[in-house]
């Protein structure tokens, strides 16, 4: 689908390259633009907020500010899981601080512009507009996230066709 690939490619050419914070969700490695990242904190007690989508875990007290916590696993339609290294990456998107629950933070990578490719076309039904691009280095692959776009939608995003089972958040909540 050329129509979905074109805006993603232009986004990649606009902001690809630079420093990225990489983290894991399951086996997949993702990258966040380092300028968007505010801090990394350990897991805290999260106060659930009723009647919000399932990927909204709730809110926490970050030094006197109440910020929402998004579970990226659920946002991307993966099964929930919590391990020893689960932590919260606080980012600033649309001027609002938001915490992202990730499995494990990896490292800060300097990614050269030529290593970034436009997101591949997964075919119909898969939206890749929230990806800045895909970085390939040292035989590893990082999916570079456009976090503003990820957080702009209130729906769960489906990244790979395998994970894209249709479900309604309302059902899961009850």
């Amino acid at each position: 689908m050329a129509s979905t690939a074109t805006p993603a490619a232009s986004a990649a050419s606009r902001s690809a390259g630079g420093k990225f914070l990489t983290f894991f969700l399951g086996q997949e490695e993702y990258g966040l633009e380092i300028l968007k990242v505010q801090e990394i904190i350990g897991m805290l007690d999260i106060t659930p907020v009723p009647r919000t989508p399932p990927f909204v875990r709730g809110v926490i007290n970050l030094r006197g500010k109440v910020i929402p916590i998004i579970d990226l696993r659920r946002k991307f339609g993966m099964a929930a899981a919590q391990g020893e290294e689960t932590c919260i990456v606080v980012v600033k998107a649309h001027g609002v601080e938001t915490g992202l629950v990730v499995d494990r933070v990896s490292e800060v990578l300097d990614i050269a512009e030529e290593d970034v490719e436009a997101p591949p076309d997964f075919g119909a039904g898969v939206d890749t507009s929230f990806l800045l691009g895909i970085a390939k280095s040292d035989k590893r692959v990082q999916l570079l996230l456009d976090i503003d776009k990820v957080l702009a939608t209130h729906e769960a995003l489906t990244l790979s066709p395998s994970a894209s089972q249709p479900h309604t958040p309302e059902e899961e909540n009850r």
Partner: protein
Amino acid sequence: MDRERQRTLRRLLSMLGGLRPQDREGLGAAASVLEEIWTALPEEAGALREALQLCQEGLQAVLAETHPEPTRLLAAAVAALAACAQCNQQAQEGPALAPALHALRQALGKGQEEPVPSLDELLALFVQLEPDNTADVPALVAALRAFLATPAATPALRQPLQQALAYLEAVRDGTATEVAAALTAAGQLLAAAAEARDAAPAAREDVPERPPQTAAAGAVSGMALLPPGAEIELIGDFLVECREYIEQAEAALLALETDPEDPEALNTVFRAFHTIKGTAAFLGLQLVSELAHRAETLLSRMRDGEIRCTGGYADLALQAVDMLKALAQALQSALAGASASLPAGLEALLDLLAHPEAAGISEEETSPPPSLPDLVPRAGEQKTRAVPRLGDILVAQQKVPRETVEQAVAQQGQEPLGVTLTRSGAAQLCDVAHALRLQRRLLQDGQQSATVRVRTDRLDRLIDMVGELVIAHSMVAQDHVVIHGKHHELLKKVAHVGKIVRELQDLSMAMRMVPLKSTFQKMARVARDVATRQGKAVQFVTEGEETEIDRTMVDVLNDPLVHMVRNAVDHGLEPPEERQRLGKPRTGTVRLAAYHAGSSVVVELQDDGRGLCREKILEKALARGLIASAQGLADHEVFSLIFAPGFSTAERVTEVSGRGVGMDVVKRHIEALRGRIDIASEPGRGTTFTIRLPLTLAITDGMLVRIGTQRYILPTMSIAVSFRPEPSALRTVVGQGELVLLRGELLPLLRLHRLFAIPEAEPDPTRGLLVVIQVHERRYALLVDELLGQQQVVAKSLRASLGEVPGIAGAAILGDGRVGLILDPAGLVALARERLPAETARMTPPAA
């Protein structure tokens, strides 16, 4: 001639001179004094006795408020009384008595023909008009018409009077753009007519009270200090009185130097000139009367807000007082038999007072500000610029020797130093006033450097952080190590930090608080504007305008208050004629008050108008389908119907109110501030709106409740009561869900654990607790597991991060550092309504 009686009459006259028909107390006192006089008179003094009796009747008719034109009646009564006094003094019937009595009889409705006022009465009527109170203009217009129809209106008088009539009609019809200017123009025309009459050879034998304006230059020389055949004793009394008034005026003028807008002080000066003018004219002291008259004109312009009592105008007023003092002194020595000369500069001052603007006088400083060579640099050296004291300024300007100031300070007592200095004659009034003016300017300079503008978002953040500090501190203070350890020293230190933190919290909350004063002032203006447009007389009273409230709430409170004040004047108060018919004062009263009650601010708006009409509200509510039947509705329930959207009780749409924005918007605004509005009303007696608001929006008084694993904060404002029901009190009604019976009232049961899908919650209301919440006049029972206690929390919005969450008003950080959600009762009810069909459906099948 009876001297004692003469003295009493004179006192009565000077007292009545400043009274208006509304001043019931003064009128009542005057009427009873008058009665005493005429009943004490012997029968043979028939004419005078009858005349005084008639005057008393006149006053009583004013008091009874049954007369259509009380101002005219009062004027006639006062004129007649003056004529009585004159003929008492001359021990014979004066020429002015008969016509004055005739006019009074006519005003009282005792005359046979239509009352025809004289030109003097017209002037008297006009003089009592106020630019901000045009209620009596129609009466004046009618009187002027009547006068024009009589032969007394000679061709020479006709032209100015016709023009004056046109101005007054414009004011009456509300078509005059500048009411004050139109009245001034009409007044000049009336005065011109009076002049034309006096100049005519056929002029009556009236004693001219004022010299003709055109002859002002030569007037003074033509006037003697003491009139021939003056009453020495009476003038002596007058001078004593005069001195008192001058002292009051001096003190008030000095107060005006500190605050040029002080209405009380302005009134004091005005009253002083006014009274001196009246009495002096009566005693034939033309010079004093003329000076006081012109000064009074200047003061009335200040009182009406046309000019400010600053700069040149203030100087002029000060000079007038000084001149009055000098005149009084000259009179005193003249009485003692010494040859007294007129004070120098009297003529020039009279001219200046007649046309201040023509002489280039304005609110600006006329003379360059006096410098303080000695004091200012010294003050500048200090880090905090102290404002020099009044005495220091006077000494530095070499107006008063230091010893005199020190002496005055020693004797000072309760009064300000300036008053003491002027009264003892140690300093000139003008010098003290200038020194005060300089002091005020220095003070303002000092204040400017002492304030810093701070962006409000920074302020808000600071307050947030202080709130967090309080919570963080309580976490430390309640820490196991601190409480149960043996560290006595540590405990002491923690307690000390706690004290500082609390003080910091109070301070930061105070930074957001502003007094309601400016809001109240705006409302006074709104009331006046609406009243003028509607031709209603309103007295707007404010109380507690120093009450402080959160800055953000002041802005939001403004709109609903404007609407309510407009309503009160437009719909609440009756027109003056109707009020009079109902036996109420013509002037309606609207009272706006504010005070603190616990942790809320109460704002009350009260009018003494017609009150809410229960029948009319019910009729309209039924017509609009707001209620099914009027049966069994209590008054307050009926009144609260006016808050329903689209409800308006105004019989007609006026320019001011009734443009679709109704009380529903007012209620919405108030509720957005987490406030409440209640109405109390009595037909014919008026309506009172009571608004209750939290002190600040930043802090919510809440009840911490537990439901299953979760804790929520319920705003205390919406909680009525909590109880644990008997099993028999629970009902299930198909189509309406679950209900619970509380003292004969069936309340819908809200299960929060179901609405919010909270695990591990107590589903049985007889084992949990029901909290009764009030939403839009309806009550609901909210099922919770337990109450954890009251808590003040700093409310934070979730809107920016999560958007609107139904049933949740915001979030707050609890004592243990975790986030608690604040429940929104109205949202919960809406949620429950939405779910109701599903709920009933779930209850019916056995599988549930």
